[in-house]
């Protein structure tokens, strides 16, 4: 999930970034795989 932060400029304001994507929640790592072709037979 990401949150979009907006800044609105007023007169005389310093110029901030127009928009910044900031992660607010990082999913925990899950189970993963390394898949490959093999010449070893399943027995």
């Amino acid at each position, binding site marked *: 999930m990401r949150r979009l932060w907006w800044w609105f400029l007023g007169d005389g304001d310093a110029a901030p970034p127009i928009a910044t994507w900031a992660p607010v929640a990082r999913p925990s790592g899950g189970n993963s795989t390394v*898949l490959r072709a093999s010449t070893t037979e399943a027995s």
Partner: protein
Amino acid sequence: MGVFVLKLRDTRPTLEVELHDPAPMGSAPGTLGPVHDLTGSSGWKLHIHLEGGVKVVRTMTPDATLPLGILRYTWATTDWDAAAAPDANGSFQVGGLVAGPSLPLVVGTREHRMEYEVVGAGSARLTFPNGGYDTLRIIADIGQS
């Protein structure tokens, strides 16, 4: 997620998958976690959801060195047979890879979803990967003698 490529009706190469547990907290995105030790596990299944909706299931074989976390499945000629009656979960345990409308006998590519299920110690059930699916890409052959 990984991709495994197979030509229609081929029985090699063997599918081999190395299972990994989640990476430790604070790891950089994309970091592989430690290998999943299969010691004490008792069930290893390959689940394939064909593009057309047909599901097949096969029993995989762990490497003799269980801490390596490696499962293999060697395709059989019967995998390409018409599917028999589905099991209670609606999956075909024999045949089925040609049963669905997703595998026409024309040159082309079809992609299917795969996952691997392990029943571990204490009846713990784990699925790899659990954030998506691996892909089985079956490419129709031009001819076969």
